[in-house]
């Protein structure tokens, strides 16, 4: 998992351009046994989304209900806090997806 401030800064530069893009869920799963920094969010869905520009993205689904877990469900990309950091780590924000 990324913890280097330099690497976070480099990646953050690309994040703002990806906010507010629409797409449709292709595939979904619910992660019930996550990696350490995601433990307090589990269980949570991870989806592969076909974006309107034709490219595929992978991301977490937030603000979801059971009925949203179908392929074809319309979603929009939003900026959210990524995970639970250690006290000394920088808070990281990333693109996640929200049902429309």
């Amino acid at each position, binding site marked *: 998992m990324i913890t280097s401030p330099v690497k976070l800064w480099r990646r953050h530069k690309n994040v703002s351009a990806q906010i507010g893009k629409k797409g449709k869920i292709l*595939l*979904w799963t619910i*992660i019930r046994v996550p990696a350490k920094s995601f433990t307090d969010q589990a269980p949570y869905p991870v989806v*592969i989304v076909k974006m309107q520009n034709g490219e595929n993205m992978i991301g977490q689904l937030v603000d979801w209900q059971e009925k949203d877990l179908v392929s074809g469900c319309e979603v929009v990309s939003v900026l959210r806090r990524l995970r639970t950091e250690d006290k000394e780590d920088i808070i990281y924000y990333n693109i996640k997806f929200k049902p429309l």
Partner: protein
Amino acid sequence: MIISILGASTTKFGELWNVSPRAMAKEVMVNALNMSGLKSSDIDALYVGNMLSGILGNQANLGSLLVEELGVFIPAFRVEGACASGGLALHNAVNSIKAGQYKTVLVLGIEKMTDASLDETTNALMAAGSDEERMAGATFPGVYALMAQAYMKQYNVSEEDLASVSVKNHYHGTLNPKAQFRFPITINDVLKSPKIADPLKLLDCSPISDGAAAVIITGGGSKKIKKPIRIVASEIATDTLSLHDRKSFTSLHSVVEASHKAYKKSGLKPTDIDVAEIHDCFSISEAIAVEDLGFSKKGEGARDIAKEKRTLFKGDIICNSSGGLKACGHPVGATGIKQIVEITEQLRAESGERQVKGAKIGLTHNVGGSGAVTAIHILRV
């Protein structure tokens, strides 16, 4: 040039809390040497397949570490390709002999995983994926679960059909004294086991394991072994690191590509294979693999396994006589070499209770990440 296997050995796989990586390596290297009739001074180089020693054990420089256990200070290399590290190490060893650099090489696969906690290991294994996948909170079972969703929907395959992969491999595991799990399970046991990443449940997933395996290969002859098993194809192919960047979610391009090359090099076809070791890190992996390797028609892999077409004493092409990753265990760097050891024993008719009668040709299928790299080897009598 003919590449022959002179020695082959694995440790028992499992939670080996009382055994160190050095001890595991020594055990299999000594056993492989004894089988081959060679001394350590006859070995020209050591190739080590390993994924996690840097992340979980804070140990790099594995080549130099493990030649100490061999007792000769020969050229030594660590090769890494996630769960395909073993297969990649063997491929590099084969190439080094073909290039004329070395004559006889020892290839070791090794992994020590159970010393760490579950979330440390889950995290470490995700190093095989991409930043995008890690940032999405995806885990390894999660990525394969996405494939399972796609596969079940596209081909109308049930969770019961997928579960039959684990049931078969546990049955095979009961016949293998080196296996981590030596008890049978039922379809119902799989369906009732806790969910890990929907639709995959605990018993759809291979375990976290410790273990080591070694083979000795040569481009020369042997005084002790008159008719050694030969490696007639050693092929690698790669694909994108991330699953979501691929055209298909129900077939692994690297498996199709590497197996096509291997069949072409060996002049063999899928129906020539008697016995195969498949990289069943998850039940869905074996279902897709038997299709990508040409053993089953597209969409019929899981159903063929449910119909016992890949089961010992019943099927046509027997898959995972060792118990596979699911029941024999999956120490990731060791798996690719353990597969070679299993096929070597089968072709030498030394597999005891799990012997595939009359096996002459075998194949190993070793996959890294979610299909980002595949190593295919074909062995024959």
